[in-house]
């Protein structure tokens, strides 16, 4: 019935040395390895040629315009003022300083925006899934309106249609010693007096104590099963200790009240309207996206998880804290990080209303004054590029960690 195959019970390692294989050398364009090598060499040379041409043209063009390339301009005197600076800056400072001032202002608006957008976004995202029809619909309405309107338009709206139409400084809206007018929001500056150091020390001591208590409580729970209200204690300590110290040491905090002198205010802290408009628009716009992210994260935790926790007898709060939130966070954190990155990149729209961020100050005024287009644009792009590379490294690290713990 079957063919006469001789070797039954093949020897596992039996290696039959036989005649040489009929290998013919393939023509080199039919060999995939050589083919891809050739293609890559070709690609590199085309790229090299393109870059060479670009650089050559650029150098010729710059020479004709009398612009010397290089980063020497960074040490030259800038000679222009900047509306807002977190560090000492005068017209006599260098162009290099304009880069730092702009960078710090970008970081400031990014941090402010991230905090506000996160809070607003989480509230809206949870509200979107609320049992309450009105709350859910309100959140949906907010999301659909604000994420479908260009951010730049929203910035313009807050700046030109709202903040710039506020009254002159002389007719400022006043409340609690603060003023709002078309030059911004001016509030009393806190001035620490003698003894305030104690309050600061108390604050940090409270944080340290809370951390120790949390560790102790965890250990005790593991050993004995007894639980301890860590969250409440922490809040009580961190707020209570500095407050008590503050009151007992005779409230050592003075206020530098702003006063109207001529056409403007002296003293206090002024938040310029550009910052407010940008902050409002960025937070409101990004919050809509964060809300969607949060919603998706919560929905990603399957209903079965909640049911299983309830069946195990967990309370609603415990289910949220121990089952739903840890799983939802895994889903939420990667897109949330990229929203933060988006917000930071979007903060460059500042330039349209003149908030002195990196793009406005450095890629704007400094570039116009020096003509060093290549250097300035590259430095600016490098900042954002570094930020986004750092973000993606974080994300890769985070994803790797999550995948590891899911095994």
């Amino acid at each position, binding site marked *: 019935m079957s063919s006469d195959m001789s070797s039954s019970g093949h020897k596992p390692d039996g290696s039959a040395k036989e005649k040489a294989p009929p290998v013919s050398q393939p023509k080199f364009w039919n060999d995939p390895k050589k083919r891809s090598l050739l293609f890559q060499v070709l690609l*590199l040379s085309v790229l090299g040629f393109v870059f060479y041409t670009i650089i050559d*043209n650029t150098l010729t063009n710059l020479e004709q315009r009398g612009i010397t390339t290089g980063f020497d301009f960074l040490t030259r005197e800038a000679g222009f003022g900047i509306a807002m600076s977190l560090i000492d800056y005068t017209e006599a400072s260098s162009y290099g300083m304009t880069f730092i001032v702009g960078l710090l202002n970008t970081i400031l608006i990014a941090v402010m925006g991230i905090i506000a957008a996160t809070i607003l976004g989480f509230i809206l995202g949870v509200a979107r899934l609320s049992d309450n029809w009105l709350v859910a619909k309100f959140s949906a309405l907010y999301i*659909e309106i604000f994420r479908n309107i260009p951010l730049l*338009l929203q910035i313009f709206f807050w700046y030109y249609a709202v903040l710039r139409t506020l009254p002159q400084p002389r007719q400022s809206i006043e409340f609690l010693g603060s003023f709002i007018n078309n030059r911004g929001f001016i509030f009393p500056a806190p001035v620490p007096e003698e003894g305030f150091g104690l309050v600061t020390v108390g604050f940090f001591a409270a944080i340290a104590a809370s951390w120790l208590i949390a560790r102790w409580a965890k250990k005790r729970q593991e050993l004995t099963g007894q639980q301890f209200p860590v969250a409440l204690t922490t809040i009580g300590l961190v707020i209570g200790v500095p407050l008590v110290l503050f009151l007992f040491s005779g409230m050592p905090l003075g206020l530098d009240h702003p006063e109207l002198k001529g056409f403007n205010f002296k003293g206090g802290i002024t938040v310029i309207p550009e910052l407010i408009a940008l902050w409002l628009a960025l937070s409101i716009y990004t919050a809509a996206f964060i809300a969607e992210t949060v919603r998706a994260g919560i929905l990603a935790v399957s209903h079965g998880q909640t049911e299983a926790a309830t069946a195990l007898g967990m309370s609603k709060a415990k289910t949220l804290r121990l089952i739903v939130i840890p799983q939802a966070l895994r889903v939420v954190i990667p897109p949330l990080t990229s929203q933060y990155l988006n917000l930071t*990149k979007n903060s460059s*729209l500042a330039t349209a209303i003149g908030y002195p961020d990196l793009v406005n100050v450095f890629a704007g005024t400094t*570039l116009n004054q020096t003509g060093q287009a290549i250097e300035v644009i590259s430095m*600016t792009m490098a900042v*954002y590029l570094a930020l986004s590379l750092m973000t993606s490294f974080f994300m890769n690290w985070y994803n790797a960690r999550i995948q590891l713990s899911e095994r």
Partner: protein
Amino acid sequence: MKYELQPTLPPPANMIGVIGWLRKNLFNGPVNSIATIVVGYFLISFLVPTIQWIFIDADWVGDSRDACTSGGACWVFIANRLDQFLYGFYPEAEHWRVQIAFIILIGSIIWLVLPKTPKKGIVAALLLVAYPVVAFILLYGNSFGLPQVETHLWGGLTLTLVLAVVGIVASLPLGIVLALGRQSEMPIVRSVCVTFIEIWRGVPLITVLFMASVMLPLFFPEGMSFDKLLRALIGITLFQSAYMAEVIRGGLQAIPKGQYEAADALGLGYWQKMILIIMPQALKLMIPGIVNTFIALFKDTSLVLIIGLFDVLAIGQAANQDPKWIGYSTESYLFVALLFWVFCFSMSRYSQHLEKALNTGHGNRA
């Protein structure tokens, strides 16, 4: 023991009807009731005056600001400048050309979106290949007896659409090449594509536009000058192609490995495999992603005002500076916002609908 057949009873009265609905959805427990009251109060105290201002108290007809006396919104302002909002400074006698280009665009998009129209593939191909040429001839002129209209006259919604459509159409092929390159087994090809993609995705569009307007002229030999619009388009296309590449990569990765293997086993070559088997399936999966990047791009086109092009937002901004109409900026922002919103919202709804269809419908087995 014998069981009686049980009758079907209506639910208790507090579960049905308006009362039941209110109980269940608005006043389900004290926290919910308070939330309902707070949100409700806020909505009423905000929406009622807003609606009153926008519709009831508004002035709609007239030809100067004197017509706006009732204290509501002054839509007269918008009505008077509507042509500029739509066409920028495009000569009035030639507006029909824009209209035809727009009608063809909308017509073919409706054809593609409707579920049961035949020959979608051909329409899509025409829209991607032939339409840009036709639209360019129509808008720019200088051939077929059409007078030339310089690009610095283009503006308003027309320019916004030109930027967005060119950005998406031109970035599609570039994005496909980049995505394929990123998946390539050749290390140099792969790293070139990854670098390109990550650089453009890492920087804000505004710096790209700055680069296109300031640095691009330096890259080319003396005397070769570029149109400002063209420079913006180059910047937008490069920027967009990086995002497009990532969408396409997502689509390619969603195709099961077995499809590649089956194509290989049948003896199809790389390009045959990609064009006949992988791309047609992947494109279907990519459409929601492409629509989403289009929405993002559409909103981002407003940034071109920073480099001095007059898109619809820039027209509104310029109108606000007009001394004859000072003080009506809210109206113009609202109007422009509405234009953007209608486009973006309908597109996002469409993409959500597609995603749902892909997830529930008989998608990719195999």
